[in-house]
């Protein structure tokens, strides 16, 4: 039986950011992870560090996302220094393209609502017309009517981030336990045991960050994590010379030069198969936005499952029944890495979530909706 200061279940972007933060806070954590074939939302990620679309109707989520975006550059710099891995973070601002007047009006309304809900915290955005956009984005298609823009948005390489967090975690004394599923779990207040195969580990603190696996794990620890899968597909083109100076919600260029196209949302259960018709629709919107994209070859594509809470807003919770058990669930593991490493992990290390995390609790789903 190996004893640790904390156990994090799940070695994806959420789990490894939290584990890294715990190790940095001086704890000796264990990070337990599945094997080479697992759902792994983190491997399917688009790579946006995105603020402008997050938290409509949920100002706490808007603020949490902004906080994470502010923490990001420091986290990226620290990881580069400690692990030698540059995660390629850039924060040039970002746009959401609108391909019709109706889309533009709807987007404007959303942005305005975000601004009002932000209150004193503030949310600055601009709606850009096609002419101004053309100066910012090369070869913009005639179908593009305009876009919403904020300065808070950016992007990074999500795989390098995952690699850097793992490397940084181990460098800080964390123990990585791969290729395991949790066979059994025993929970007592501040005393948690996990068995996997012949191995047993225990710790006074535990964080459930197992993505879609959290739904089944959570009740064992007096928690609730009602997440469901939402499929997203991504296309990546051959490397091209640098074309984009800033990302859009559905088209971004990586440091290596490949252009990523994304953003399908499909409700299909635990199914990671690809759909040619969905890929075609994504390609069509991309080519409408930037006609010159039509010539580029798609060299790889995939489908992955987002970890989606019922209302899209993250679920962060601490167990009342078993003190010391926490959970983190979201579909924005890249964007929220800053908050997870620099805000959430310190809370876990201190033993309790801050009071302003209460709106993120799964208890919100118990409240009947006002008519």
């Amino acid at each position, binding site marked *: 039986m190996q004893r640790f200061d904390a156990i994090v279940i799940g070695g994806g972007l959420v789990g490894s950011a939290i584990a890294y933060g715990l190790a940095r806070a001086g704890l000796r954590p264990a990070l337990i992870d599945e094997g080479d*074939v697992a759902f792994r939302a983190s491997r399917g990620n688009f790579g946006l560090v995105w603020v402008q679309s997050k938290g409509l109707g949920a100002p706490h989520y808007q603020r949490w996302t902004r906080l994470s975006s502010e923490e990001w550059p420091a986290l990226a710099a620290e990881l580069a220094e400690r692990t030698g891995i540059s995660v390629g973070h850039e924060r040039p601002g970002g746009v959401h393209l609108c391909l019709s007047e109706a889309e533009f009006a709807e987007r404007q309304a959303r942005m305005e609502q975000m601004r009002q809900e932000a209150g004193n915290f503030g949310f600055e955005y601009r709606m850009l017309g096609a002419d101004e956009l053309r100066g910012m984005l090369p070869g913009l298609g005639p179908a593009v009517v305009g876009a919403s823009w904020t300065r808070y948005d950016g992007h990074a390489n999500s795989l390098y981030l995952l690699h850097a967090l793992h490397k940084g975690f181990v460098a800080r004394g964390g123990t990585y336990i791969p290729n395991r599923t949790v066979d059994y779990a025993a929970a007592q207040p501040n005393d948690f045991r996990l068995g996997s195969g012949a191995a047993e580990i225990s710790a006074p603190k535990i964080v459930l960050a197992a993505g879609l696996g959290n739904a089944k794990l959570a009740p064992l620890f007096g928690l609730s994590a009602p997440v469901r899968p939402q499929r997203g597909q991504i296309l990546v083109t*051959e490397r091209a010379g640098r074309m984009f100076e800033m990302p859009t919600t559905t088209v971004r260029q990586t440091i290596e030069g490949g252009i990523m196209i994304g953003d399908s949302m499909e409700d299909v259960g635990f199914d990671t198969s690809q759909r040619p018709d969905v890929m075609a629709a994504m390609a069509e919107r991309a080519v409408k936005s930037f006609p010159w994209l039509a010539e580029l070859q798609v060299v790889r594509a995939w489908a992955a499952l987002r970890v989606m809470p019922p209302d899209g807003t993250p679920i962060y919770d601490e167990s009342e029944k078993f003190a010391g058990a926490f959970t983190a669930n979201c579909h924005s593991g890249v964007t929220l890495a800053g908050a997870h490493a620099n805000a959430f992990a310190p809370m876990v290390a201190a033993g309790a979530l801050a009071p302003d995390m209460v709106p993120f609790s799964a208890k919100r789903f118990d409240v009947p909706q006002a008519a």
Partner: protein
Amino acid sequence: MTPDRVDLAIIGAGPAGMAAAALAAELGLDTVLIDEQDSPGGQIYRGIERAPENTPLGADYLAGKSLAASLRASGAAYLPATTIWHIDPDGTLSLISAGASRTLRAHRILIATGAIERPVPIPGWTLPGVMTAGAAQIMLKTADLVPAGRAVLAGQGPLLWLVAAQLIRAGAPPAAILETTPHRNYHAAARLLPATLWPGRRALRKGLALIREVRRAGIPIRREVRGLRAIGRATGDKSVERVVWDGGEIAADLLLLHEGVIPNTQISLALGLDHRWDAAQLCWRPAVDEWGATGVPTIAIAGDGGGIAGAAAASLSGRLAALDAAAFLDKLDPAERDRRARPLRAALKRQLAIRPFLDALYRPAPAVLVPADDIVACRCEEVTVAQIRRAARLGAQGPNQAKAFTRCGMGPCQGRICGPIVSAVMAETLGKPIAEIGAYRPRAPYKPITLGALAGLGAE
């Protein structure tokens, strides 16, 4: 091909595909044969329709002519210059042809994509002027072109001797042959020789005749070559300048490598079919029954893509798959299927007799599977063996995680070339058998497709 669904869609116009198409059409199946080249033959019979009778490529190659003729004469539809980029197990194929994407639906799909050369990751294998032995053969088959300057053949296997003989007949004898067969292979092969002598006699005779032909031409031959490496020019295009090995070296303008062929499993892996690691052939093969059927009823596999057995075996397995497809689609009585299969199985057994001996004799040396640290494993993304090892030590448990950490396998070849190397390197680093490490999981598009074609914008 206007009906809603064809009976049988065959992918690959090599011997397995051509034989399957002709027989399936004869059995009354509505059949379509899809291939990315612009004429039939696959790679082994590439360019066969235009080949002259006195081709330096030899009689075995010419045997492909009748297969191509049968295909043309059959009622099967043939779609050349067409690439498959996605298959749905429900029988829907996504194709691209002349820059336009379209779909085709079939009740049964037969994958007959054959074999590819095993990667040969020696130091300098990425230098310009270093190619596969098969590449030189393709130059002869398609364009009647032969190496200019000093061509060195290095590696082992029947194809090495075949290409050497073909180049000699074509008036361009290689400057040397460096055979890498390790000494211990001879003992292992010798043990199998008694059982192989009679059933494998034709193949053995053919092989010996080729080796004799090459010796008679006076080509310098080195045996048990170790430490093979290609050295490039210091300036200019850095192309290969000489080939060095433990105890020798030779000037070269072209280095042709060969360490056997392995099944092309790109589509079968993408479909998530079960694969087994073949310890004798040191490669992955899809799990298929004696008809080529897989765990997915709509998908079957024929030819070298199911396991290396050669061209003659491939056309036999193609015909078996056609019989099974007909029975599966209720167009052939199962007893009749079995009756017609019997002579094919007997012939197939004869073809397979030589395999254990060849597999033992030409078993690649360990360094072919697990190269040294500084060698490029992933050519597309220029990821070294050392980087793969580091990823494994950092917790990557298999090639798909290694891909996420290092970018290996993310390039346009989609892991076709580096796959075997990455799995073997990770197995050795983690101290686990390759069977446990697994292979890449490729995804669609199986071959690159432009965004325009994908968006359905039509032909360029």
